[in-house]
């Protein structure tokens, strides 16, 4: 076992551990943080395998942006501050799906590379990747970007409500109430009451 193997093993074990913690954490934010650690770990795995570009892309996109968005969404919506736990409702389903995926991927990977050990490869440099992406595979690349664009637009449509829709959004009270405060008092009695109770 070479030093290389030891490093790989350590990184891989950390990543796997973080992955398990991700799905077992009862605190949503902890889970998201462990997800970030898992993604960082997989970036490290790529690094050990001499795939620099993929590793850094993983870091930049998945850790720097996706994990941050995850955290952002959680904190903005319902994540309790501090130590309160939040338990999932679909534990069985989740175990089933992830277990199935794990088996599927394991079978595929072992079937494809099972005979070979971990070995150092000199991956393609960034020049080669660029040429491959923008010359040989340019059509799939563009199709993929269209898919992402569609997803983006879909997200905006979902998130944005048109002004006329029902909801709790506060109406611009400033305009209507020109001189008569009684309407305001009726609508928001707790406001004019003032103070805390």
């Amino acid at each position, binding site marked *: 076992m070479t030093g290389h193997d030891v490093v790989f093993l350590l990184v891989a074990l950390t990543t796997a551990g973080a992955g398990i913690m991700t799905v077992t954490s009862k605190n949503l934010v902890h889970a998201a943080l462990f997800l970030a650690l898992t993604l960082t770990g997989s970036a490290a795995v790529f690094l050990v395998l001499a795939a620099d570009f993929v590793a850094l892309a993983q870091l930049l996109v998945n850790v720097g942006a996706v994990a941050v968005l995850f955290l952002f969404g959680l904190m903005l*919506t319902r994540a309790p501050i501090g130590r309160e736990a939040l338990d999932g409702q679909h534990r069985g389903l989740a175990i089933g799906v992830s277990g199935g995926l794990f088996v599927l991927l394991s079978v595929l990977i072992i079937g494809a590379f099972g005979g070979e050990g971990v070995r150092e490869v000199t991956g393609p440099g960034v020049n080669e990747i660029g040429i491959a992406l923008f010359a040989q595979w340019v059509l799939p690349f563009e199709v993929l970007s269209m898919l992402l664009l569609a997803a983006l637009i879909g997200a905006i449509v979902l*998130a944005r*409500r048109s002004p006329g829709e029902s*909801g709790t959004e506060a109406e611009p*009270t400033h305009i209507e109430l020109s*001189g008569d405060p009684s309407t305001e008092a009726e609508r928001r009695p707790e406001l004019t009451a*003032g*103070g805390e109770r």
Partner: protein
Amino acid sequence: MSDLSTREKIHPGTAPGEDIALEIVGDGDFATTDMTLSIGPAHPATHGVFRIVLELNGERITAARPVIGYMHRGFEKLAEYRDFRQIKALVNRHDWLSGFSNELGVALVVEKMLEMEVPDRAQWIRMLIAEWNRVLNHLMFVGSFALELGAITPMFYAFRERDEIQYLLEAATGGRLHFTYNQVGGLKLDLPKGFLAESVRLSKLTQERLPDYFDLVLGNEIFQARTVGVGPLPPEVALSFGVTGPTLQAAGVPEDSRVTEPYLKYDEVDVPVHLGENGDSFDRFACLLYRIQYSLHIIDQIHDHLPAGPVNTKLPKMVKAPEGAAYQRIENPLGQLGYWLESDGGRTPWRLKMRTPSFSNVQSIPYLLEGMLVPDAISVLGSVFFVVGDIDR
């Protein structure tokens, strides 16, 4: 001095920040939880012990509730246990940034009840010091409002001027915050030798430096972006709340006690008043800055008019106001200050009501904040000028 074209884009009636980029509200799975954010009692933006409870949806304020009273010191009660001449040492403490104006109000109302003739020189000196006090107060707000918007420099600029004015007033009164220079019937002492020369020099110096503030703050693009159209206060609402001072003038209401109900010798000098258009944070701040400029203009006129003569009158050994009630209002730096003095003919007031400008001004804050973003709340809190002691008394 500033480019107001950006203001024209804002329709006068729209709620502030209506077309916002990130709008995260909704039902069902996308619903966000509301948050109650308590700003204060000790918070950088409240400059004093003042609390405002905000109900937030994201960063948008759905309701605001000021909580006051942390600094209530019962001055109205204390005044009932003081001789008419002693009250002035109490009242210059409620609005600690305009001590002289406060005690001036009490002196005037007591003199009104005693039907006392105050020497001309005393009246002119009172005007002079009151206007300097106004400049002192407004400079503080120029600095602190900019600081609340994140600009740290105007504060230091303002304190550069403030320090010199403080020295000037200290030379005359012996005090820096609580001057206690007024007396019933005049002033404690005459001006010291060399005061007028220094006053003239300082007035000129401050006028020379004023364009710095207009450029650095009022002309700043980010400042305009943060204040134009933020927290517009319609004039009729402002009047209904009893909002006065620069906050009311920003709404375009020409109301200034020095002009509409002149006291002292304000009817003998030219008192310009700057009026805003929309009553938003920008206008409020502009009115404040112009008030500094115009106060210095008044100070210059006082320098030319100041007569010779005594500065106080001999008081009887026992000051007893006749039975009855009198009301006197003066234009404090922050707005209209009113003293309702009711006497039963004894040595102490039966009732002294302090009608302070901050109390009424702050009352309008919940109205202004609804539907705004948290940073706008800071912009509104900073531009509806108030001193916490002046709210709670």
